[in-house]
């Protein structure tokens, strides 16, 4: 573990840095994105709120304008005691008592019209707020459908107190005619206003609204059965939408445009008890643009973090390389030296320090080819220690070794620098004499022979007299391999051994 850390600490630190920086920028991106979303939702809610307000106002203006005027116009001479405009479900749309507008009408007689005890459209007498009144619930129909009820009554206390029943009846009849006329005119204005409030008109209103607002794509009202009851787009009115469509707020693609959908649940238009939902489609183009912008920023930050880390890594890497390069150079030098030494060792004979047999053969071949090519002379000398077995037996291996070493040494000192001396095996030493003719080689061999014979070798207390037999042969045109020269020299050596040793034999080819 610690090893691992030591080895990769810089990498780990850099990686952590890059990761945390990218993580941070991504986190920042998420937060900003959420903020954008939140802002868009708030804006959308504001827009939805103002649309609902506008729709309500639209309804109010259209449907109540004229009725309201009647309501406040108590100076009509008709002395209206109470006036209400009630929707079929009992909700008071308009009343001379402002505080009850929007509530469900609780009047006792109204409940009786429900059960049928009191017929609609007929006058009847009752007491309201301790005052005797003559009332009528006047139904307003459109296309045979009940769209509203006018509740109207007049104070008749004075008739009750003052007049005879006959007079009263007559006066009340007259009042009923007046009231019916009034109701007719009210009916007319309600029809009018309802007509203008009717679907097409409302649809136009929404259309205008969408046209004037620059970021609204679509406004729709959906009922509890998810049916679109109203929209600025006429073609979708009446269609059903998915349950999921109205239950979620999301950004989606519509006609290639990023669109934001917000649903305002349970809105009550004009105090009606029916719960409707407002679906608003807003242009989310600017949101998407902004989101892309902050995403780009986040990616750029991450990229920069990575580049920065890479840059630092490079610097660290280079300084490390530099210091290790020097070290390597030193090592390489060392290795070179070592290799050279090893190479040298492998070419030389460990005991005598002369070239070994392998190298010797290599050189013989090389020298042979070179000499033949350039028509140069070349000779090979094979030297063998006389009675070496005897020396070994008498003085031991160490003695033999010492003898071999000394002979090698004296050969090295006695020969020319260009001569190549190698130990061929056992007590056999070979000398390659380049650019040397047979006569000269023979002369050199004789000198060696006499030199070694004249110089005894000291080994401990003993003095060993050593002689060598030498065979010499030289390159001739008919030679095709060095082995031929070599075996000729060997033959010459054999001959000189047979001739009594301590002498030189030159191969004669005739």
């Amino acid at each position, binding site marked *: 573990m610690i090893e691992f850390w030591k080895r990769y600490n810089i990498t780990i630190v850099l990686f952590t840095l890059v990761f945390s920086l990218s993580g941070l920028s991504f986190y920042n991106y998420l937060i900003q994105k959420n903020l954008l979303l939140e802002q868009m939702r708030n804006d959308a809610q504001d827009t939805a709120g103002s649309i609902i307000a506008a729709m309500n106002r639209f309804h109010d203006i259209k449907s109540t304008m004229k009725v309201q005027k009647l309501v406040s116009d*108590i100076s009509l001479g008709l002395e209206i005691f109470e006036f209400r405009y009630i929707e079929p479900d009992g909700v008071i749309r308009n009343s001379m008592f402002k505080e009850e507008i929007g509530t469900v009408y609780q009047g006792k007689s109204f409940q009786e019209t429900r059960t049928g005890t009191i017929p609609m459209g007929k006058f009847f007498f009752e007491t309201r707020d301790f005052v005797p009144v003559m009332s009528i619930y006047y139904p307003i129909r459109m296309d045979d459908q009940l769209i509203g009820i006018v509740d109207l009554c007049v104070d008749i206390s004075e008739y009750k107190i003052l007049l005879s029943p006959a007079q009263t009846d007559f006066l009340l009849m007259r009042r009923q005619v007046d009231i019916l006329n009034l109701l007719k005119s009210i009916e007319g204005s309600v029809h009018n206003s309802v007509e203008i409030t009717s679907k097409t008109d409302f649809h136009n209103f929404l259309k205008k609204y969408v046209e004037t607002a620059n970021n609204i794509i679509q406004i729709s009202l959906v009922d509890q059965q998810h049916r679109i009851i109203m929209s600025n787009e006429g073609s979708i009115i009446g269609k059903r939408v998915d349950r999921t469509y109205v239950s979620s707020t999301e950004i989606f693609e519509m006609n290639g445009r990023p669109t934001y959908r917000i649903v305002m649940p349970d809105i009550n238009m004009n105090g009606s008890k029916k719960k409707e939902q407002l679906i608003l489609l807003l242009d989310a183009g600017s949101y998407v643009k902004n989101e892309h912008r902050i995403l780009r920023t986040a990616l750029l930050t991450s990229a920069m973090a990575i580049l920065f880390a890479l840059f630092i890594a490079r610097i660290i890497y280079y300084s490390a390389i530099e210091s290790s390069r020097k070290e390597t150079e030193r090592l390489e030098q060392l290795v070179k030296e070592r290799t050279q030494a090893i190479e040298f060792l492998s070419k030389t004979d460990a005991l005598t320090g002369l070239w070994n047999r392998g190298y010797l053969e290599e050189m013989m071949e090389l020298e042979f080819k070179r000499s033949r090519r350039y028509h140069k002379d070349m000779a090979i000398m094979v030297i063998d220690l006389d009675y070496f077995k005897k020396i070994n037996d008498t003085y031991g291996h160490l003695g033999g070794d010492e003898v071999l070493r000394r002979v090698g040494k004296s050969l090295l000192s006695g020969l020319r620098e260009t001569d190549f001396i190698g130990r061929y095996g056992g007590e056999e030493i070979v000398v390659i004499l380049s650019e040397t003719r047979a006569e000269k080689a023979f002369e050199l061999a004789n000198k060696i022979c006499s030199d070694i014979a004249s110089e005894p070798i000291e080994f401990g207390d003993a003095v060993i007299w050593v002689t060598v037999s030498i065979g010499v042969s030289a390159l001739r045109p008919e030679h095709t391999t060095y082995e031929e020269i070599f075996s000729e020299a060997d033959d010459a050596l054999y001959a000189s051994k047979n001739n009594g040793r301590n002498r030189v034999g030159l191969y004669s080819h005739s």
Partner: protein
Amino acid sequence: MNFRHLTAVFTVLCLCTADGWCSENARVMDELNSPLTPNPLKSAIGEALYNEAIASGEYRYTGNDKCRLCHRDFFIGRKHDQHDHSMDYISSGEFKNNPRCLVCHSTGYGTPSGFVLLEKTPRLSNVQCEGCHGPGSNHIKVASLKKTGGGLLAGEDNPERLKKMCKVCHTSRWNRSYNDFESAYSKYKKAVPK
């Protein structure tokens, strides 16, 4: 309980009722023989202001149906107050059109646009809102424009005048309505003065 007892109780009851009627009658008789009660509004706010206000044409009696539009709680509440039924005593009898009695038993009698006759102005019978607060047309105008109170000759902002109003009607002869004036007065701050 035997028959004798019953007769005794009956006699006592008859005596009491007779006594009550006699004394009531006595007050009425008294009233008929006294000088005409002055116009309550004029007495309460002073002749100068009264003349000015009436001449301006801004102060007319409207009847409590109108007050009901904005003070429905008062309208309903005052149905439980005897002022709203003060005509009951005289409307069916011989004093129906007697100015001596109407001054105190109707709204705005003797003032232009006030109560005249039951047949002519049935909506101003009884002592209504305006019987105590004075003609309300100006207040309605102010209230519907500014959504505030004000504009009454004897409104909440002028308790001295209001108190004088009470006292013009509740004379030493007609003094059985309350024992403690102040507590009776403050009851009328509520919609139901009980």
